[in-house]
């Protein structure tokens, strides 16, 4: 997404889905994962006659509400989308003007799409050709359509290609930058967008600033600390610019290449300590490896309101610390919703019992480690204070520093006034009225200045920049292979000083592009470019001229720095179709991928996996739980809805293995791991695949570990983690695990006495 048009976030909002005439959902199940947000889908159907198309390997609760359900083979979304594009180009359903003015390299897509005839798509995806034609015709002709996805599209070895082709499909139809259109990625948990924005990633600084020395220096001075001091915290200066381990594979760092495990590149040492703050690491892929990683640590610290099940998964006896963290109800601060809007959350009660807030834990840790002053200095800068007020000064610090995604307008005062006056905003457009006039609820980013309205629909040129309009971001240069990468004439946001495209604004081009002359004083204050301009002069000047500081460029269908320049179908590492593995093989193995050597083709061709593991394995969520299910299974009533780990299995498939409804069954993975779960007959899955939820923990490969909980802390429900049997496999760019398209083998589990 970010590599297509500048930002990787939901482009519109849940409310805006009500404006759609068609909704196509790939690998998302909002009826289960976003039950409240799902009412907007239902209202779009009711009020707007929107047609809802659900493309999913499993017939979900969302599919039950769909007008058309498409049962797709896991991991073949690219083939399906190219199939749609094939028909779109063949029938002239594309938006030619939009493509010409605002998209680069659509011709390359067209060439690839030409290969994906409905028959070919049908062979690869398992979707009948007529259904593909029906869906495409409906979606392309319905008027504005919105495209929805979640983890079902991203958690594949080709996930980063999936999430490029979906935007390309929307670009081809001209569905971007429109109310009722867009690519609406559903964030799975509370504040995921906020956490990502704040840099809970191993390859960025907060606000998606990269790891270059320039970015570090900008942060050092904004945080009020010496750059050299920061640099001194690393083993050597070069490590400052390197990507770290990811959540998906941190354990490889702890195992450190022992016993034939993947080799790491970590300055000659393994990971020794792990500090986990509110993360269900018992719901990430390869649980047997997670356990091995935990066992290999010197020290493990877990901070959660309930006991993180990593504590009982590990055999480690010493130096495991469980810190009682407070919940979100026991503290206050900002929280960012899936549509890039911010809200203030007020404390309901003081932290209960001995629990402590996250910030308390971090401050105390910083004190003990001796950098508390540096850690908190940034909060005092704005008003040159002696001390800071939490969390207001933290919020203001974020607003002061993060320019890339336009958080300048998110001051604590403004955010609070939005939350306090939430009733003064329209529920669909987010427009404020009365005293909130001129602002959109929650100031969806980019919110360029302390007066800016916020931007509810990204890349919308029908609105002025002041009202949240903008073109695509100029992020990938001015031209490529001799082709102009800036937008063509006539595609600038409303009231723009410039008719067409323009570059991102920096100190050197501002006078020329904006046609202004800066005063000497302004010249002295202005930063190098709009992203590091502490004076905000660049942004203010752009606002006056109706320009977006990041430029107005074309979205790109081709990413020349990626292994696949245009998205290509590649079979999952564990594919049920050996013939297609030959035709669509995976990538070359990748060395030093977020510090770990990662297998692709060698894993895919290690053996013909389907022979021993003939069944597709799909994982997903339940409505009463989220993540690792720690909090939910600790609730009596939520646990009662699904008291046991189970596997949805088609009766015909179960019958072949002599598995009766409600009897126990084993699921074996190609990695040699297994789980024992209860069979639940279901027609939601077809005969070639099974579905298991990933919210359970506490049992491991047939063994009940719950006796290891400290007295009185075991949840009401425990069970095998689905991720003990999800397969090896990671995205080639992001390293997200391939949990949505693996293989397994099943057998009846004899009831032992």
């Amino acid at each position: 997404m970010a590599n297509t048009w500048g930002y990787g976030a939901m482009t519109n909002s849940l409310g805006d889905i009500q404006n759609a005439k068609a909704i196509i959902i790939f690998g998302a199940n909002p009826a289960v994962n976003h039950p409240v947000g799902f009412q907007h889908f239902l209202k779009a159907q009711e009020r707007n006659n929107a047609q809802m198309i659900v493309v999913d390997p499993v017939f979900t609760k969302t599919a039950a509400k769909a007008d058309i359900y498409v049962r797709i083979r896991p991991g073949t979304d690219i083939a399906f989308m190219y199939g749609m594009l094939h028909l779109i180009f063949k029938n002239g359903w594309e938006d030619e003007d939009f493509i010409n003015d605002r998209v680069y390299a659509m011709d390359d897509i067209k060439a690839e799409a030409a290969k994906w005839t409905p028959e070919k798509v049908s062979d690869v995806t398992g979707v009948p050709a007529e259904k593909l034609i029906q869906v495409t015709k409906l979606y392309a002709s319905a008027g504005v359509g919105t495209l929805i996805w979640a983890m079902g599209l991203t958690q594949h070895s080709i996930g980063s290609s999936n999430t490029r082709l979906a935007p390309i499909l929307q670009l081809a139809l001209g569905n971007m930058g429109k109310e009722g259109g867009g690519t609406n990625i559903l964030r799975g948990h509370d504040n995921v967008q906020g956490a990502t924005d704040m840099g809970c990633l191993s390859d960025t600084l907060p606000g998606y600033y990269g790891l270059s020395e320039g970015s570090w220096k900008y942060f050092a001075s904004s945080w009020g600390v010496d750059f050299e001091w920061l640099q001194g915290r690393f083993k050597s200066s070069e490590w400052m610019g390197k990507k770290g381990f990811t959540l998906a594979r941190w354990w490889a760092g702890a195992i450190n290449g022992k016993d034939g495990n993947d080799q790491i590149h970590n300055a000659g040492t393994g990971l020794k300590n792990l500090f986990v703050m509110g993360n269900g690491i018992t719901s990430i892929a390869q649980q047997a490896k997670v356990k091995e990683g935990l066992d290999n640590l010197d020290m493990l610290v877990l901070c959660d309101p309930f006991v993180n099940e990593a504590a009982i998964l590990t055999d480690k006896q010493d130096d495991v610390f469980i810190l009682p963290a407070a919940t979100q109800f026991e503290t206050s601060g900002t929280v960012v919703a899936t549509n890039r809007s911010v809200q203030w959350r007020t404390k309901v009660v003081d932290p209960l019992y001995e629990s402590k807030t996250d910030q308390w834990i971090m401050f105390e840790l910083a004190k003990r480690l001796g950098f508390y002053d540096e850690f908190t200095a940034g909060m005092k800068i704005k008003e040159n204070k002696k001390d800071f007020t939490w969390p207001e000064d933290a919020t203001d610090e974020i607003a002061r520093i993060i320019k890339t995604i336009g958080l300048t307008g998110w001051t604590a005062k403004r955010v609070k006034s939005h939350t306090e006056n939430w009733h003064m905003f329209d529920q669909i457009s987010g427009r404020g009225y009365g005293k909130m006039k001129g602002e959109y609820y929650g100031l969806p980013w980019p919110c360029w200045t302390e007066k800016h309205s916020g931007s509810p629909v990204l890349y919308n040129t029908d609105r002025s920049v002041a009202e949240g309009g903008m073109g695509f971001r100029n992020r990938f240069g001015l031209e490529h292979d001799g082709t102009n990468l800036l937008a063509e004439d006539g595609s600038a946001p409303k009231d723009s000083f410039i008719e067409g495209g323009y570059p991102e604004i920096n100190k050197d081009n501002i006078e020329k592009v904006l046609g202004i002359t800066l005063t000497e004083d302004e010249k002295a204050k202005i930063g190098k470019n709009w992203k590091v301009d502490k004076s905000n002069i660049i942004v203010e000047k752009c606002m006056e001229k109706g320009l977006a500081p990041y430029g107005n460029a074309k979205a790109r269908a081709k990413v020349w720095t990626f292994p696949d320049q245009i998205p290509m179908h590649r079979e999952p590492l564990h594919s049920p179709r050996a013939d297609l593995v030959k035709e669509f093989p995976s990538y070359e193995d990748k060395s030093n991928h977020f510090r770990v050597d990662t297998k692709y083709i060698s894993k895919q061709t290690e053996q013909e996996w389907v022979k021993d593991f003939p069944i597709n394995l799909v994982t997903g969520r339940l409505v009463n739980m989220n993540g690792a299910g720690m909090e939910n299974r600790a609730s009596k009533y939520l646990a009662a809805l699904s008291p046991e780990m189970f596997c949805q299995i088609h009766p015909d498939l179960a019958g072949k293995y002599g598995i009766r409804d409600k009897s126990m069954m084993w699921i074996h993975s190609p990695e040699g791991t297994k789980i024992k779960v209860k069979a639940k007959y279901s027609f939601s899955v077809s005969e070639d695949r099974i579905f298991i939820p990933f919210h359970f923990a506490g049992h491991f490969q047939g063994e009940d570990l719950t006796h290891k909980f400290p007295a009185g802390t075991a949840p009401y429900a425990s069970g095998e983690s689905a991720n003990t049997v999800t397969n090896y496999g990671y995205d080639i760019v992001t390293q997200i695990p391939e949990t949505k398209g693996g293989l397994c083998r099943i057998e009846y589990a004899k009831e032992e006495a």
Partner: protein
Amino acid sequence: MGEFARLNFYCDEHRCINCDGCSVACAEAHELPEYISRRKVITMNEGIENMEYSLSIACMHCTDAPCQQVCPVDCFYIRADGIVLHDKDKCIGCAYCLYACPFGAPQFPLDGAFGTKGVMDKCTMCAGGPEETNSHEERELYGQNRISEGKVPVCAAMCSTKALLVGDSAKISDIYRERILSKGHGAKTQPYGWDVAYGKKL
């Protein structure tokens, strides 16, 4: 609530997504034992294309309530607003009401006759029972009394999609009628725009 208001439930089949928000909210609010389901969400034809649908069901607070008619100790009473309640001190747990009830609403404890919520338990429409309003005794036996505080029953308040409607039956019809009439008429953005943004006239 008007003088002749009758309180009813309605569950919109197009909206209900079987999320169990309603039933969990009910159980949590009234601290019910796990085996008591004052409200239950039923899904039919699960997993079958074009056939699956869900509905949330509790006591329907019948006007001519069969439970009341068959009760041998006459423990049921119907309030002026139509809410059907019963007196747990009189109730003998014979389950006649369950035979009579067309919706399977009455619930019985598993662990002996005098479990925490008495002999028979059912949806009270969040209106408590015959004990003194908002007393400790009422809360223990019947759960919260939200109606006395002017609050909407918790199941409907919590419903994710506003499938579940509760209240004055005339109001419910109005809401549902509006849903039907707005079909195909487009999203309902409030009809005001801005003439100012960013502090200046555009």
